C-alpha cells in the first residue's frame, strides 16, 4: 500500500472547473455559526469543515459551503484528519470504510474534547478525545462519493458539514472516469443542497428537536450558491468548446429529491454511487436524484449550444415542486 506522502500526483490534462484538496491527504477543522448570505439577502446559519492546511475555507478554496472537495486515487491509502472543539465526526458516505473509520458516533466514536467524555455515548478505543483524529481507508472504486458529519445529522448535515470525495482511477489519470472507462475533457461537480429558513437559526439551536422534524426547504443551492449567483458561478455554469466531452458529477446533500435537466441537452448517465451503470441509462434528458445518491453524467457539447439547466427540488413525497436552481450551459 502506498503511503499518502508517497502518492504520485494526479496525471494528465486537468479538466477540473474547481479546486480540490489531496490527493489522498486532507486536514479539516470545524467552524460553526457562520452566516451565509443567500441571493435574496437572507442570512442562513452555516457550519463547515475548513481546509486547515490550505485556504482555511471550503469548496474551491473560495467559499465555506460546501466543505472542501477531497480527491484520492483508487487503491491508495487515504488519511483525513479532523480536529474539532465540539463532538463531530466524518462519515465517508459510499466509500464502504471499516467500522472504526465509519464516523458514526454510536459505533465508531466521536472526535471531541475531553470534557465531552461520557456525555455523548460510546467512548472507547475508537473515540478520540482532546486531539485530532485521522480517518484512514483505502480509496475504493473510482467515482463520486460524499462525506458529512454524522453527529446530530439532522442539524449538522443541513447546516453545511458536507463535502464531496472524488476517487480517481488507479493510474491517477485525470480525465478518465475509471480504469477502462470513458474519458472526458472537462469536469464539473454540482453539489446540491437546500436550506429550510424556518428551522431555528439562533446560536442556541444546536440540537435537533420537534422544530426540525418537518423539512420544507426554501433555498436551493448548487455548490453553495443559489438564485442569480448560481447562474454566474464559475464552478456551476458549464461552458465547453463544441465537441468537447463534459463529465458532470451530481451529488445530493439535501434531504429531499430533485430532478436535474440540462435544458434539453441529452446525456448518458454513466455511473451512480461510485459504480458504473449499464447502457440502459444512455440518452437521457433528465435524472432524478434522491438524498445521498450520486449520478455521473457524460455529454458532448454540441456546436452553438445554449440552454438553461435546472435542478428542480421536490418535497419528500415527490409530488410537489418546492423550488429550483438554474445555470447556463453554453458552447464557447
Amino acid at each position, binding site marked *: 500500500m502506498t503511503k499518502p506522502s508517497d502518492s504520485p500526483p494526479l496525471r494528465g490534462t486537468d479538466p477540473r472547473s474547481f479546486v480540490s484538496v489531496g490527493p489522498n491527504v486532507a486536514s479539516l477543522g470545524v467552524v460553526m455559526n457562520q452566516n451565509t448570505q443567500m441571493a435574496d439577502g437572507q442570512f442562513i446559519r452555516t457550519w463547515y469543515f475548513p481546509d486547515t492546511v490550505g485556504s482555511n475555507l471550503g469548496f474551491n478554496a473560495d467559499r465555506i459551503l460546501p466543505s472542501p472537495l477531497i480527491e484520492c486515487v483508487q487503491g491508495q491509502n487515504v488519511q483525513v484528519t479532523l480536529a474539532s472543539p465540539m463532538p463531530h465526526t466524518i462519515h465517508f458516505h459510499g466509500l464502504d470504510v471499516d467500522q472504526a473509520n465509519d464516523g458514526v458516533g454510536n459505533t465508531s466514536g466521536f472526535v471531541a474534547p475531553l470534557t465531552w467524555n461520557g456525555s*455523548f455515548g460510546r467512548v472507547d478505543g475508537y473515540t478520540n478525545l482532546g486531539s485530532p483524529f485521522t480517518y484512514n481507508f483505502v480509496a475504493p472504486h473510482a467515482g463520486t462519493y460524499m462525506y458529512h458529519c454524522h453527529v446530530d445529522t439532522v442539524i449538522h448535515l443541513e447546516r453545511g458539514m458536507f463535502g464531496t470525495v472524488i476517487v480517481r482511477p488507479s493510474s491517477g489519470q485525470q480525465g478518465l472516469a475509471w480504469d477502462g472507462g470513458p474519458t472526458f475533457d472537462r469536469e464539473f461537480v454540482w453539489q446540491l443542497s437546500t436550506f429550510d429558513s424556518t428551522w431555528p437559526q439562533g446560536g442556541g439551536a444546536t440540537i435537533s428537536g420537534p422544530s426540525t422534524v418537518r423539512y*420544507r426547504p426554501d433555498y436551493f443551492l448548487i455548490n453553495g450558491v443559489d438564485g442569480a449567483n448560481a447562474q454566474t458561478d464559475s464552478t456551476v455554469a458549464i461552458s465547453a468548446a463544441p465537441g468537447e466531452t463534459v463529465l458532470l458529477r451530481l451529488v445530493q446533500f439535501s434531504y429531499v*429529491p430533485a430532478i436535474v435537466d440540462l435544458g434539453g441537452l441529452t446525456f448518458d448517465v454513466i455511473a*451512480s454511487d461510485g*459504480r458504473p451503470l449499464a447502457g440502459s441509462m444512455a440518452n437521457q434528458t433528465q435524472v432524478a436524484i434522491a438524498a445521498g445518491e450520486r449520478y455521473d453524467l457524460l455529454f458532448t457539447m454540441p456546436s452553438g449550444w445554449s440552454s438553461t439547466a435546472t435542478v428542480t427540488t421536490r418535497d*419528500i413525497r415527490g409530488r410537489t415542486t418546492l423550488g429550483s436552481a438554474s445555470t447556463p450551459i453554453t458552447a464557447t
Partner: protein
Amino acid sequence: MTRSSSDSKGRRASISRRALLGGGLAGAAAFATPRLFRGVTAPRGVTSTLVAEAVTKTLIDGVEVDVWQLRDSAGAALGAVPSILALEEGESVTLEVSNQLPEPIDLMIPGVSTGPTTWIAAGASRQITFTAPTAGSYLAHGITQPDPDGEVARAMGLATPIVVHPAGGGKIFYTGGPTYDRDYTLFLQELDDRLNAAVATSGSGAYSMASYEPNYFFVNGLSVPATRTDRDTRLSNRLGDDVAVRLINGGQITYPMHFHGYHVDVIQRRAEGGTMLPETTVVEKDTVAIDLGASADVRLPIHQAGMFPMHTHYVPGVTANGTYVNPYGGGVVMMMTEILLDDDFETGDTTRWS
C-alpha cells in the same frame, strides 16, 4: 451454524414476542401488521383473515396516537411483530377482510388483480381471492371512499407487506435469478400525528395529503432502540453471506435507504402500482430510493465484519418527532438497522451499541 429458513423465522418471532412482553415501550410497535405462516406450516393455497381496525398506540416517546392497522387472526397472539404475507408464485390466496373501522374500506394490492372495488361497510367483511403474482415484493393497503388511492389509509398505517417467492420456494429472488443465504423484509412507514388526530375525529376525508409532513418513522412498526433487538430488523449476518433485503414502502414519503459499510446489488424494483421497473443488469448502489408504494429487492454481500447502520437519508426520519435517541438528547427513536456478524447476536451481547 447454518439455520434453515423456517427455524430462523420461527425463532425470530418467539424472541421478538418476548422482547415485546418484557420490554414495555421499547418493544411497542406503531402499527401491527399480520403474520402469515412462512415456511413453518407452508400452507399452499393460503387463507387468512385480515382485520382492519383502529387502535391507540403509545409511541416510543410516550405520545399516544390513534392509528389504523391490518392484522390477521394470529396477529394478536404474535404480538406487535409485523408480518410478511409470504406467498409462492401462482398459488391461490383467499383473504377474508373484516372491516372494524368506522367507515367503508376496500383492500387493494397494486400489481395484483383482485377484482373491482367492492366497498366493505363498517362492521362487514368480504373475501378477496387472487393468484400470487411474479416473485417479488408487493404491498397490500386499504382505501376509503374519500381516499380512493389509499394515501390517507396508508398514512394511518392500514398496510402490510407481501413477499412472493418463486414456485417451490428456495433462497432465490426469482426463478432463474440470484440466490441468497438469508433474507429480511423491511416495511417502511411513517405518520404525521396531525393527520392521525384529524382522521380519528372526522374520518379519512378530514386531512389533505398536501399538508402531510410526518414526524414519526418506523421499520416493521418499530423504531430505535427496538429495531436493534428485534430479530426481523436487526440484520444479523455472517461474513461471506449474501443477504436478501426487501425494502417495501408502505408509507407516503420517499425512503432513500443508505447502507453504511456496503454497496448492495439492486436485483429488482417495482414502481408505485406494482409494475416492474426495467433493469437489464444488476446495479450496485449504496443508497436506494424507494418511492411511495414502491419496493426494491437488493442483495447485500457481507464482505466485511462490523456494526453498521442502515437508515433513511431523509435524515429527520431517523428521529422521533425530531429528537434522537441517546446519546443526543431526547431519548426517543431512531430508525436504524444494524448489520453485524451472527455470532454477536447469538451471544446476546447488545451492550456494545447502547
